[in-house]
């Protein structure tokens, strides 16, 4: 097949941007596996590293779970109803994507820190600083917009008439949501959840500022190894985190492709 001029131009432009994105990734893998395979193997069997990576994955999962429980119903409301203050709420949801992570950290500290607005009063039974809830809250703060916005778009793409018809067929409001709106919006909710999880696992500043270095998440460990032991020590952990994230990403994207294909 002959390629047209515009297609050729787009391919060239595409190659450039893919190169910018792929080069650092390819480079770090190449450097690691070609020159420091033993270092990588020792890192991947290091209990401390595995714990940090595991904690990152798990906390990010919890953050997505909480966002899912509270954010999906909100996304449905935003997609279906008009009410006063809707624009304000949408602005608040988008804001975390726009602010620097250190600013997020400062804001979180003033609310969830030991002497914070909420963190203070509940400190006798629930601590955010230096504890898992803190990691989850920090991750949630920066990652929630991705899931909520994607879910809202998902619900917006479902014709409200489908739910009306479901009601006329005997479905209650809840049944119409569960059997019609939710399954139809699910591919987009799922894709939002993946993005949310990815954003959560990558958060460094907000987590470190609210929680501190312990319990240690993967980005924290990479930073501390880099800072105290040098570039190559940090790189080993970074490669592990990259590998796991890449695997999860590819796996979920594959699942997502199957979901879309069904509809």
């Amino acid at each position, binding site marked *: 097949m002959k390629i047209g001029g515009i297609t050729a131009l787009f391919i060239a432009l595409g190659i450039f941007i893919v190169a910018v994105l792929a080069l650092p990734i390819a480079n770090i893998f190449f450097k690691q596996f070609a020159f420091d395979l033993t270092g990588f193997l020792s890192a991947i069997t290091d209990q401390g590293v595995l714990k940090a990576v595991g904690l990152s994955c798990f906390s990010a999962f919890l953050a997505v779970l909480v966002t899912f429980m509270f954010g999906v119903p909100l996304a449905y409301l935003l997609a279906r109803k008009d009410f006063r203050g809707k624009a304000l709420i949408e602005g608040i949801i988008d804001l975390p994507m726009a602010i620097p992570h250190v600013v997020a950290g400062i804001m979180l500290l003033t609310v969830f820190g030991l002497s914070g607005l909420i963190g203070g009063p509940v400190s006798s039974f629930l601590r955010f600083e230096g504890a898992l809830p803190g990691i989850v809250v920090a991750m949630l703060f920066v990652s929630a917009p991705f899931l909520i916005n994607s879910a809202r778009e998902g619900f917006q793409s479902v014709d409200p008439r489908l739910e009306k018809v*479901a*009601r006329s*067929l*005997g479905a209650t409001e809840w049944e119409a949501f569960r059997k019609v709106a939710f399954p139809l919006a699910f591919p987009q909710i799922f894709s939002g959840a993946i993005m949310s999880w990815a954003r959560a696992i990558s958060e460094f500043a907000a987590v470190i500022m609210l929680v501190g270095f312990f319990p240690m998440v993967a980005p924290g460990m990479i930073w501390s190894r880099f800072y105290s032991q040098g570039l190559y020590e940090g790189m080993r952990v970074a490669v592990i985190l990259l590998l796991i994230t890449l695997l999860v990403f590819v796996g979920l994207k594959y699942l997502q492709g199957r979901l879309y294909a069904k509809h």
Partner: protein
Amino acid sequence: MLSIRDLSKKWADFSLTNINLDVKEREYFTVLGPTGAGKTLMLELIAGFHRPDLGEIWINDKNVTDLPPEQRKVGFVYQDYSLFPHLNVEENVEFGLRLKKIPKSETDEKIRRIMNLLSLTHLSKRLPKTLSGGEQQKVALARAIVLDPDVLLLDEPLSALDTQTQERLRRELKDLHERSGITTIHVTHDHVEAILLGDRIGILSDGKLIQVGEPDEIFRKPKWEFVAKFVGVENIFSGKSELKKGLARIDIGNVLIEAVTQKEGKVKACIRPEDILLSKKPIKSSGRNMLQGKITEISDRGATVRLKVDVGRELVVIITKRSFLDMKLRIGSGIYASFKASSVHVI
């Protein structure tokens, strides 16, 4: 059966004002009105998708005004069919039954019967997006009537379909109604549809129900310009059909016409004005109706000319300006009007 009392509602750009209507048990009621008249809003109010600002809705002597849609026993079919895209045909049809706590054996039997009735059985595992418009519409109908609703609401159910499918489904709708006897309200902007299907017609304009009556009455004594515009635009006759050698002979009063149909007894016959051919000499061919008459009215419409021809009944005919001039037609000219038996639409 269904009674709407002093119903008013403002919603988005639409409004309904003081609607009063009684639809009888087993009746097929059509609501005719232009786009934006509030037809869909009226159906959605009956279904309970909106709450009226004023007024009441009664179904089977029960005030349902405050009931949610799922407790009204009202079937709804939208113009775009609104099938659940993630469910196959069978799952769509069984959607309502599965929500009820009825034993599976019983629901399976019901689904089988309705799929058979509408000839959908061979499509049962297909997803909606793989179906034609006509097939989708039948699935939407099956999904609604499998629940034996008290009232069936049809929102422009045929207008998204091509002409041929429209005609076929129009017949199926009529048959279905005759067999099931479900009280039906069908809204449309197509006057032919309203006339052919409706036992009675209501005219809705600017949110007001301005005239209710039997088709003949509505079109003979129109109270309003919107209806008046249609009078004489189409050739619609009530008649009696008898089958003979595969063709139907329909007595439309003073005139006998042949049509391709299997319908017997009381029928309505419709001939589109552009399907009628005018000639000064008779055209002999089989399967054709040939009627002799006189031109009673001529109106110039630019590229076409509309004529009324008295052949015992008044026929409206539209021909091109060219053939009108070629034939040198005048009021009072003797003329032959012919049309194919297959151009007579019978319901």
